[in-house]
């Protein structure tokens, strides 16, 4: 009796410790963003929304925010067809060099981001597209594509492989069968993967650091740059906007496909 109680106490203690540890940075930032003072501090000094009000006046951050949005949308838009078709192809068809192809597609995940960033910087410089914004979106798509492939693969593997035969048996030519049966079947994975890709691109820092300059700087890089000069609470407010967007994405995911599938797909 005592044994069970002390065991459950220890378990609860660990759970609470973990929860606090995980959420502490977020709580501190959220708290700090409401300060009335002029420096980032926790607990905050008083309560005001003045730093949020000021956000709209910070043109640098606002421009960086929209650039980040643009880059993330490109990344998501490219990853949806690429990741979906790759995942279906790898799971469904007997392809030559299947294992090598799989490894190749997951390779970006195993290479340190610093190396990827440097490589892409050199390559983009060579073909003279360094300094433009859209290649950043493509790069983020490349380095995060494994997540898209994993998410869709989970859906494809859960899909009855006979469905395509059933569609053919019903009179659907291959392309039509794919569009009307296979694609709707893997949709939960596609949605999960797309939201994941969006969030990952939205938050990405290291590779963007290599690929952007003062004119094309994205929000994470922009925040990093300001930390190196003056740390003011508007940074905390920007961070909170970030957290809110991530949170909305998770809510969206839960609403659209359910978090269960998202967690299972990993």
């Amino acid at each position, binding site marked *: 009796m005592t044994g069970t109680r002390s065991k459950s106490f220890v378990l609860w203690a660990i759970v609470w410790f973990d929860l606090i540890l995980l959420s502490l940075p977020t709580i501190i930032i959220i708290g700090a963003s409401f300060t009335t003072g002029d420096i980032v501090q926790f607990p905050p000094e008083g309560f005001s929304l003045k730093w949020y009000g000021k956000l709209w006046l910070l043109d640098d951050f606002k421009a960086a925010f929209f650039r980040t949005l643009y880059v993330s949308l490109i990344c998501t838009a490219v990853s949806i067809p690429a990741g979906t078709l790759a995942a279906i192809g790898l799971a469904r068809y007997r392809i030559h060099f299947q294992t090598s192809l799989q490894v190749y597609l997951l390779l970006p995940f195993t290479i340190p981001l610093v190396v990827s960033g440097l490589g892409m910087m050199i390559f983009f410089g060579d073909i003279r597209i360094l300094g433009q914004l859209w290649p950043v979106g493509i790069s983020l798509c490349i380095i995060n594509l494994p997540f898209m492939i994993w998410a869709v693969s989970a859906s494809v593997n859960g899909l*009855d492989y*006979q469905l395509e*035969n*059933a569609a*053919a*048996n019903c*009179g659907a030519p291959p392309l039509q069968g794919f569009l009307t049966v296979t694609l*709707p*079947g893997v949709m939960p994975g596609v949605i999960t993967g797309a939201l994941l890709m969006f969030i990952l691109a939205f938050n990405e820092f290291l590779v963007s650091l290599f690929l952007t300059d003062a004119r094309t700087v994205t929000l994470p890089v922009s925040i990093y740059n300001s930390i190196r000069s003056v740390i003011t609470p508007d940074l905390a407010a920007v961070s909170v906007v970030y957290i809110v967007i991530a949170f909305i994405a998770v809510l969206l995911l839960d609403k659209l496909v359910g978090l269960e599938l998202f967690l299972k797909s990993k």
Partner: protein
Amino acid sequence: MENSPPLVELIDVSKRFGRFIAVDNANFSLAKGSVLTILGPSGCGKTTLLRMIAGFESPTSGEIRINGEPVQAVPPYRRSIGMVFQNLALFPHMTAGENVTYPLKMRRFPPQDIPELVERYLGIVRLTGMKDRRIHELSGGQQQRVAIARALSFNPDLLLLDEPLSALDKKLREEMQLEFRRIQQKIGVTTINVTHDQREALVMSDEIIVMADGAIQQSADPVSLYRHPSNMFVASFIGLTSLVKGTVVQTEGTTVEFNVDSTILCGNAGSRFEVGQSVEGAIRAEQVRIHPEQTRPEEMDNVLEGVVSEQIFEGDRMVYQVQCPSLGSTPIFVFDHDPTHHVLHRKGDSVVLSWNVRDLLVYPCR
């Protein structure tokens, strides 16, 4: 009057996957309107055969003809074949009605006719009013019916059933077997059914093909198949059959005497045997009579003494497993249907078994 060609015809059809021979030189033809069951243990090639007819696999050699036309070059979506898949393969993101509508749309039926056809086929499978249900909201039996309606709604020339009943429990399975029979007779669609369930084959078919190791063993109507199995495999696969091995000592007409361990049995030979040839005898459990010790059954040709080693109560009958010392270690299975006065033989009881010569079928050893 001109004879119409058989609806389906297989000519020397073989299928190899690498070195593995899945289907070995299959030949059969199927007349319009009949129900054929391909029966065999799992892995015997029956599903591969069905998938070749549907067009999902192509034969390594040989030819498949439908309505007299070779179909090698015809892709599955242009064949007029409805199929009920083993796991049903219903489209999970569609309702029951949308599943039945799908083939009609894909096969370009006039849009104004579609709703009526969907209603009609849902009616035939007794799912009227279930049109808007999602697939996962339906019970196993109802899903089965949606799959049948989807396979039939476009009025195909041929219906293929790939063990669709195997996942159901026994009671539902037996209900669905009769349901299939009812629907088939109502619509008259030519059907090929694949199963490993001998009862299903006997209940549902006009003709049965037994397959083993990729090869067709026998093709016959259910009654002939059960009463006159053409070889040892068919005899042992259908019904509960006891097998005894021995050596021929004498033949006379269709009667063959063969030596098993320390006794001589009389059996009914399907083919000619030489003295000294190794043979196997097969006797069905329902053809063996069981009597208490010391009874001498009259007018029985083979009489053996034995000891009950196992006794299984199956409700409507009793199954005994009897060890006969004169047959060595081979057990004999016996059904005892006698609801009025079961003479119960317990485990360890001495009994006398008997059967008629015509019921012990003798085949050459494999």
